[in-house]
């Protein structure tokens, strides 16, 4: 497998609202790409545009350098934000049906449904109606529906929404496995920090425009240095606010997260902290994706 999804200059307006504003980015095979941004940033519209589910005012979606038609879309897997399954249909039959719509034979679709239901640990619900399943299990069925036909491109809109930590881990592992197998994986989330561990590459958008794009490692290690300092007896980190060139980005459970200006020497920060009290924590940290986002917007 292996492919490349390119979104070039996507533009879409709904009346006075500009949902996508000259948005361009690529999704290479082999990596889990996080598609991030606050609510209303245009993530869902972008994903729907990949599947031709929304008209574009201009711009193009290309797969391996060519246009995307029905034949290409058959090899894509899609999990929409507002989950879509027939509530009254049996899980197994539903998956088989969706598999066949993706061009699989009945036997292959049945076998793939079985494999994925087993893998996602809901095989015992194959003969249940979808509406009888819990939210988390419905989400697993939806994921199975997107994966069933071994897609070359996997597009998942908010796949982790409403899941417990075990569910997040399980789905995260599946995405990683798919990427390792050569699949293009694009998934969206509005919770930037929650998915930081999951993605290897991120594209962050806001108001339909690209904010920043790159590998998580590059984005996290670039920018101003971050220090987390905990001083006993000073839960509000009052000491740090008077240190020149240091800004407090947050204080959580007595630990202050500090952003250091380029000219600031970390030793001087440590000395200032020691003057305030006993220092129990002092560590350099990577930049968080939410910080990348905020700083990119200025």
């Amino acid at each position: 497998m292996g492919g490349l999804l390119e979104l070039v200059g996507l533009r879409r307006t709904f009346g006075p609202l500009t949902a996508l504003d000259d948005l361009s980015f690529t999704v290479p095979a082999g990596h889990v790409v996080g598609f991030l941004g606050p609510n209303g940033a245009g993530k869902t519209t972008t994903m729907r545009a990949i599947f031709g589910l929304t008209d574009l005012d201009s711009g193009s979606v290309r797969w391996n350098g060519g246009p995307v038609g029905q034949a290409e879309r058959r090899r894509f897997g899609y999990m929409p934000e507002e989950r879509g399954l027939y509530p009254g249909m049996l899980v197994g039959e539903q998956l088989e049906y969706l598999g066949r719509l993706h061009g699989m034979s009945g036997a292959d679709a049945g076998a793939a449904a079985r494999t994925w239901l087993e893998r996602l640990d809901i095989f015992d619900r194959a003969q249940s109606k979808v509406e009888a399943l819990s939210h988390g299990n419905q989400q697993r069925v939806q994921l199975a529906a997107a994966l069933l036909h071994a897609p070359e491109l996997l597009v998942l809109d908010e796949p982790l929404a409403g899941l417990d930590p075990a569910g997040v881990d399980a789905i995260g592992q599946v995405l990683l496995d798919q990427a390792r197998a050569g699949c293009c994986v694009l998934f969206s989330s509005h919770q930037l920090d929650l998915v930081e561990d999951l993605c290897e590459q991120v594209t962050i958008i806001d108001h339909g425009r690209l904010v920043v794009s790159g590998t998580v490692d590059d984005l996290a290690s670039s920018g101003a240095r971050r220090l987390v300092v905990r001083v006993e007896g000073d839960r509000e980190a009052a000491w740090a606010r008077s240190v020149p060139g240091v800004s407090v980005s947050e204080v959580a459970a007595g630990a202050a997260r500090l952003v250091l200006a380029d000219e600031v020497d970390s030793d001087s920060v440590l000395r200032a902290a020691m003057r305030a009290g006993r220092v129990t924590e002092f560590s350099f940290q990577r930049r968080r994706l939410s910080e990348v986002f905020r700083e990119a917007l200025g």
Partner: protein
Amino acid sequence: MKFTLVIAVGAVVLALRIFLRGRGRSGRAPSTDDARPHRRVAFGDSLGDVGLVALREIRERVRGRIFRVGTVIILLVVAAAIVIPVIHGGKAGPQEVGVVGPADPSLEQLVQQAGARVGTAVRIVPEASARAADDAVRSGAIDLAVVDGDRVVVNAPVSADSTSTVATVAQEVAVELGIEHAYRAAELSGSQVAQLARAKPVPVQSLQASTKGTARTTSVIGLILVFLMLTQYNTWILMGVMQEKASRVVEVLLATVRPIQLLGGKVLGIGLVAMGQAAVIVVFALVLAEAVGSDLLHGTAPLVLASELVWLFLGYAFYCWVYAAAGSMAERQDQVQTLALPLSLPIIVGYVLALTTASTGNADLLFKVLAYFPPTAPFAMPVLVALGDVAWWQFLASVLISIACTVAMALVAAGIYRRAVLRSGQQVRVRDLIRRPAGSRRGTAAVPR
């Protein structure tokens, strides 16, 4: 008679058993073997996406309780419509008439002629005595008895408005015997009596076409069925499209198939179920009518039945697109209801006018015009056929108009569906679909679907 009733009851019981078995199967606890999704026949493979969608519709519909119970109820109604008139009209076979007294050819001839006038065959059974005749009538061995040529004995009381065969034969015989007695009292000669007996009514000329009662009755039953079935299948389409939109499954489906394929598959699948159900009902009606000797399917009635079937098909083909487009504009039950009412108006108007016309037997100009108007033609045209008010080329013209309008409607509906079915959050209004957002044009990205 009893035999045919047993067959009818047996058919219903069998249908119920199949229904209950089906329910039992779907309610069974899953075993490991069952859990494997069933392999489907290769039918869908050769039909492509439309076939797959249609196959799913057929499976889900036929499996549904509403369909099974609905079919059984319709079959029961049809059985009742066929069997009740037969029972009401009494025995279909010859009437057994007991005659007490010395053999009298003129009396026997009188009884036979009375039967012929009523439209039933009569068999004369000599009875030894008035008491024996009473017993035979009471036990049902004979239907009525003529005692000594001056009295008619029946089991149940006969009134002026009795319509059973026994009652009408008894009344006819009683009147004839009374006339016979009057002739004798007037002391007419044998030749005079014979001449009077040959008296024939002068012909009654009607200014309007023959009403063909049987065909009319058949057309009324057919009308009710066409109305019920069209309403049911339209509702399926409307609800099916609405539910696919409401559950957002349409988004998953349209990521793979084209809107026209999804819509076409749905319409085809439900249409096949509709035609299958109609076929079952027609075969059931034909077999039952033949078995109980009903005259509902005699004469021109089969022609009426055939035209009902043609128009059920054409009516479905026309309305399915209308309802599909409407369903794509709603995503909640209350929205569906506000849409369904205006859509069902032409159906209701056509149905009511057709029923009225079928019962009065007079088609006015408006009704004849409505027979060429695709929304009302499925009801109006079969009634005109039943009334003998339409030539074959007029029928064909109406069919062609309907087909042309159906094609146009399908194109419009597919356009509305494509635009409306993915819009969620609020009810889509028609003008939203016509007026495109400013500056919006189809981008190069969205490959024509």
